[in-house]
């Protein structure tokens, strides 16, 4: 655990047959940082995140999560990370309370810990009235925030979010990001993929992935200065175009 970086990836590569989905990406994420992992649809973001959380075995390269090796120490990694997929992944036919209890249960929390977490999450999200309703009946924005809270039910050091805010309006996205800041303020490292450029501005540092490679890495300010523009949109467009017309 004595490691200054939360995530460290070196030449991480994934090939499916002849197709290279992720091409030798190298980056480091500091502890407590909000790290944005940007890229167009199909750039390889989800494949990269799946390798980091142990759902997919890399073809080549090295990586450590919270100091644990992704090949040899998968069990230790699993106890130290939370994950929220782009499908937000709660059981729609179970109630809010049943979902929290189940996820607490599979992370081995005891009854007391689960009840404590349950109260905390329900109060934090203001879900007192909906706690006994099935998740499927909640608005999408609430489901997403609940999924984020559930991803942190076992107090992991790192939370991976794969396009957590797809399909909701900017105001709801803003609420979601307030939760991320809160978690980050408590020292949790956040690794978040997105293709919304306004969200990129909220991150401490971002990497931009184009066709399987990381083409730019730095804080939003640095990137905008480097590409001489004042919006992340333009940074992104310049990167994609330079790749299309080399």
């Amino acid at each position, binding site marked *: 655990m004595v490691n200054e970086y939360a995530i460290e990836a070196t030449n991480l590569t994934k090939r499916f047959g002849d197709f290279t989905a992720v091409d030798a990406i190298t980056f480091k994420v500091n502890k407590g940082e909000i790290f944005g992992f940007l890229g167009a649809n199909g750039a390889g973001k989800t494949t990269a995140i799946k390798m980091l*959380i*142990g*759902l*997919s*075995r890399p073809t080549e390269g090295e990586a450590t999560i919270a100091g644990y090796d992704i090949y040899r120490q998968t*069990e230790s990694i*699993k*106890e130290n*990370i939370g*994950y929220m*997929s*782009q*499908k*937000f*992944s*709660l*059981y*729609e*036919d*179970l109630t809010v309370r*049943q979902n929290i*209890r*189940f*996820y*607490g*249960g*599979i*992370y*081995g929390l*005891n009854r007391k810990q689960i009840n404590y977490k349950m109260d905390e999450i329900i109060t934090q999200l203001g879900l007192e009235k909906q706690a006994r309703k*099935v998740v499927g009946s909640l608005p999408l924005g609430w489901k997403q925030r609940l999924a984020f809270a559930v991803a942190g039910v076992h107090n992991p050091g790192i939370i991976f979010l794969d396009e957590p805010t797809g399909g909701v309006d900017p105001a709801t996205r803003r609420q979601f990001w307030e939760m991320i800041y809160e978690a980050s303020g408590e020292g949790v490292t956040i690794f978040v993929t997105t293709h919304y450029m306004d969200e990129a501005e909220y991150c401490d540092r971002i990497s931009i992935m184009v066709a399987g490679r990381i083409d730019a890495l730095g804080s939003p300010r640095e990137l905008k200065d480097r590409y001489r523009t004042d919006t992340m949109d333009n940074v992104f467009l310049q990167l994609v175009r330079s790749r299309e017309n080399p």
Partner: protein
Amino acid sequence: MLRVFIAFVKKETFHILRDARTLVILFGMPIALVLIFGYTVSNEFKDASIAVVDQSRDDLSQKLISQLPASGHFQLVDYADNIEALEASFKAGKTKLGIVIPNCFEEQFFRNGTVKVQLITDATEPNYAATLTNYANSMIRKFQLEQAEVTRLPYQIEVRSRMLYNPSLIGAYNFIPGVVALILMLICAMMTSLTIAKEKETGTMDLLLVSPLSPLLIIVGKVAPYAALSFVSALAVFAMGYAIFDVPIIGSLPLLLVLCLLYLLVALALGVLISTISKSQQVAMMVSMFTLLLPTMLLSGFIFPIESMPFPLQQISRIIPAKYFIVIEKAIMLKGAGWDAVLMPSIVLAIMLVVLLVASWRSFKVVYK
């Protein structure tokens, strides 16, 4: 570990209770199947309509004709004057079986000691036709014996057949074992493949795999509630068979239940295998339909006897688990057989279980590595 497992089973139970469709399939379908098969699929018949062409019109022919409906199985609906009239009666659908009595019936019978009676059936329904001719045959033979006692025919072979284990040929003795095999296959394999495919579809499977749970525990946790419910369902069918259709369990009940459990595990392993190769619930449903439901119905010997299938289909039926389980059930329930008699089919099922477990474990790993 146990706490995690309980959390899992609890959650799965919530799913089942929340979804009315699941409950209908788990408990409604077995009851419906038993009743449908019990009252429709049957070779037993009564009041089958028959027609007679009596070309002789003497005492003996009248005696024979009057005896046919007496059994309660036949109902005389038509007295045809000739073969053409009989055929018209068949075409109109009035008659299922025609009996043609030749000229000088009585005279030939007593003088020559031999006489030919013709049976004509409507074979558009082959099984029914065969059953009717068999039955009419034995009735005429019986009639002949009765008459022979009066006149003392010198030589004859008397055939007495005995139907072992199901003397009155009750259809339920055949279909209750079949329905149990079908239900267990359907509930275990189809429901587990659906429920696992659903987790893949909604992305919750990824979350489970990212958690510290071992994949084995995930599968066992998902499958266990369905195993328990299908076992209860099977018990219900045995009980219904016993209470409503008088199907006995002559052999050892514990032995039957143990082997029932073995078959259930085979079905579960099949369900897991199907779920690992299907991406969505719809695919899982289609695959289960075509690889489980239809073969179990058609190739297991449940509805059609395996012996009368063409050679290639007979070979295919060898890999249908239900075939072996039906053999086991019939041996224990109807013949009262013990361990030694059902050892071979049990070993086959055990081998199938091991092969399926290994296959689904490998397939599961391929998908998630």
